[in-house]
């Protein structure tokens, strides 16, 4: 057990640091794809990194990566995050879709798509969720009908991040409604600028709109853009999702336990600092302990990973704990401020950052696996408990009962 870098890790870190320091002036400073200029800046930075061998570190060398170890990847991310927020507009492609193509794509597909993805020349979206298929992804209804060498696609996707600035998307659609739901899906690469695709931003509670609805109206997809066999798309979906949990960020506008402790120090309660209140102290301690627990758990996973273990469902713990915890912390911060806790903007402490966090937090509990799905994953895959009883067991998709919503 050792928290210091091993010698080869230290050397790698020094190399990363040196390169970042030398190229610091090129780091984009804008928000996450908030406008065309910010996207262009991100693309330039990604290309610069790619040319120097700092893009998609864990990818195999043949696709432009350096086959780095998970630990090296973490070291790089730690160092890069000192210059820029580590989440970027390429992450869905590079973290989830690229790895899926590597496993299930044809040689032609790999050659065509992986390098531009790595260099940030092309941005990718994921088109899985639907209004009627969230946690139950395999219940999706968007469908493709064969027409010569093409598929004609109709339906609606939702929760698509960055659809408006993406070049390509990965679409999962139903190609056979007459078999059980998992068995009738196929996995396609789709041109996001194709005729018949309409993209509408979704306004969220917190005012942001990082997500979109994507409508498909007779969209033509050439069969050569299919990944994997017809009706065997679920296998690809699994590969994609296995890469998901670990790549999800858990930030909350950058607010952490230190900020909350600071807030409790600054805020006055009846003439004393709020942090002098025993109940406040105990809550802060409780938050701190859970956050540390999550952090050290990720170190344990990382250690396992670096020894060649595949990332297990234990990774779900991080999000399952952090997401509700962040909501709790934001809610507590608002309460801490007394009646002024409701105020936003300049009239509020920390310029309303906690209030924004309060409004944003519920989304974190829902995106990328709800609390409930994560608990099921832990229960079934880690503890080996029985799966839920299946009301749709053995039913053809088109026979499965549906509700009005």
């Amino acid at each position, binding site marked *: 057990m050792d928290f210091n870098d091993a010698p080869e890790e230290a050397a790698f870190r020094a190399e990363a640091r040196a390169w970042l320091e030398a190229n610091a002036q090129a780091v984009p400073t804008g928000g996450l794809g908030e406008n065309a200029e910010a996207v262009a800046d991100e693309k330039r930075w990604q290309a610069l990194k790619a040319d120097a061998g700092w893009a998609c570190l864990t990818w195999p060398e043949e696709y432009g990566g350096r086959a780095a170890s998970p630990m090296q990847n973490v070291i790089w991310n730690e160092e890069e995050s000192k210059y820029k927020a580590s989440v970027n507009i390429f992450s869905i492609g590079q973290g989830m879709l690229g790895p899926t193509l590597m496993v299930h794509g044809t040689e032609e597909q790999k050659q065509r798509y992986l390098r531009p993805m790595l260099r940030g020349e092309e941005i990718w979206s994921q088109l899985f969720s639907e209004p009627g298929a969230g946690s139950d992804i395999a*219940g999706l209804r968007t469908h493709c009908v064969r027409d010569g060498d093409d598929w004609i696609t109709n339906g609606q996707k939702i929760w698509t991040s960055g659809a408006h600035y993406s070049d390509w998307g990965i679409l999962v659609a139903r190609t056979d409604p007459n078999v059980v739901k998992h068995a009738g899906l196929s996995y396609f690469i789709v041109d996001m600028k194709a005729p018949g695709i309409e993209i509408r931003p979704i306004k969220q509670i917190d005012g942001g709109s990082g997500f979109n609805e994507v409508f498909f109206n007779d969209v033509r997809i050439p069969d050569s853009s299919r990944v994997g066999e017809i009706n065997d798309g679920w296998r690809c979906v699994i590969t994609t999702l296995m890469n998901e949990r670990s790549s999800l960020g858990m930030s909350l506008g950058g607010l952490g336990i230190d900020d909350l402790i600071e807030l409790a120090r600054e805020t006055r309660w009846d003439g004393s600092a709020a942090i002098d209140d025993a109940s406040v102290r105990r809550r802060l301690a409780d938050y701190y302990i859970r956050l540390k627990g999550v952090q050290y758990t990720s170190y344990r996973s990382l250690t396992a990973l670096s020894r060649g273990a595949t990332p297990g469902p234990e990774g779900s713990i991080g999000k399952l704990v952090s997401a509700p915890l962040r909501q709790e912390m934001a809610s507590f911060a608002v309460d801490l401020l007394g009646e002024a806790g409701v105020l936003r903007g300049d*009239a509020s402490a920390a310029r309303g950052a906690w209030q924004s966090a309060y409004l944003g937090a519920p989304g974190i509990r829902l995106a990328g696996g709800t609390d409930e799905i994560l608990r099921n994953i832990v229960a079934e895959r880690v503890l080996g408990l029985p799966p839920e009883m299946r009301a749709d067991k053995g039913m053809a998709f088109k026979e499965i009962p549906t509700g009005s919503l």
Partner: protein
Amino acid sequence: MNFDFSEEQKLLQQTARDYLEEHCQLDAARQVLESSAPYASDLWKGVAEMGWLGAAIPEAYGGAGFGHLELALIAQELGRALAPIPFSSSVYLATEALLLAGTPEQRTRYLPGLASGERIGTLAHSEGAGRGGSPGLTTRIEGDRVSGTKIPVPDGDVAGLIVAVVRDADATSLALVELPCEGVDVEALDSIDPSRSQARVTLNDAPAEILGERGAGEDLAARLLDRAATLMAFEQIGGAERALSITRDFCMNRYAFGRPIASFQALKHRLADLFVAIELAKSNAYYAAWALQNDEPDLATAACSARASASDAFELASKEMIQMHGGVGFTWEYDCHLFYRRSKLLAVTLGSADLWRDRLIERLTG
């Protein structure tokens, strides 16, 4: 013993519900939220015409003279509807302050306007972030002039009468400030729930008049807050019940894995827990309303129990509402966020559940 509302009272409640279902669908809160209007003025007029603003005001002062049990039930319905009007400020706070401590002359001067809705009233006690005990107040009264900054003042931007908690050299008092007037500067502020107004009120030698005995402000404010908290608890319970009902219906009609998500035991049990939390809050609130109506000394503890459990129940309801709706619950388009915002606003206004728990133990243990 008879621990229920009377048939007449229930009828009044049903009338209120029917009226609001017609005139205050959830879209009303959304419209105020999305516009620059501080509140729904048509609804305000309607509510005044229904006699609700003066529910607890004697007829002699232009009120309907119903009583506090009736007012509590109206509050519950307004909570259900997330009514975007300054009802709580004007009725639970300003009107109650006058009923509690006003001279006959003051009542005559202000209650009719409050009952008719022509004048909106509110209480200005908070002075910024944190919890301010009365001795730490910086808003000063000298003679008949007050100076200081109150923030946030709920509905302060639309108020025509402010009951301000103020200090002189050694004591706390309540003071009435009429608006608009020289020396009062009002600025509307953004908040978590823009369907209700918040303001900063700056007083610069503004003319004021003492309400109640000079120096009795701490006691009066505490008693006023007990009354307001009791009524607010009903508003919160109304909101919580509506959130539960919408969520229940959603879960019954939303299918996943071939069955209603309401059939998954984890959701069933959490919905049951939510129902239980609301029922306990309701029972506590009923008791507090009884104590309020009958001027029982028990109100001091009953208000705390009602308020803390109602705040917790509504906050839980709105959190679960979003979570159980899944992704759509996090969209602007769905109504969940109206509840999420409102529940937090109401939980924080008049002080957090923890503050009321503190107050409870203080009172229980003397």
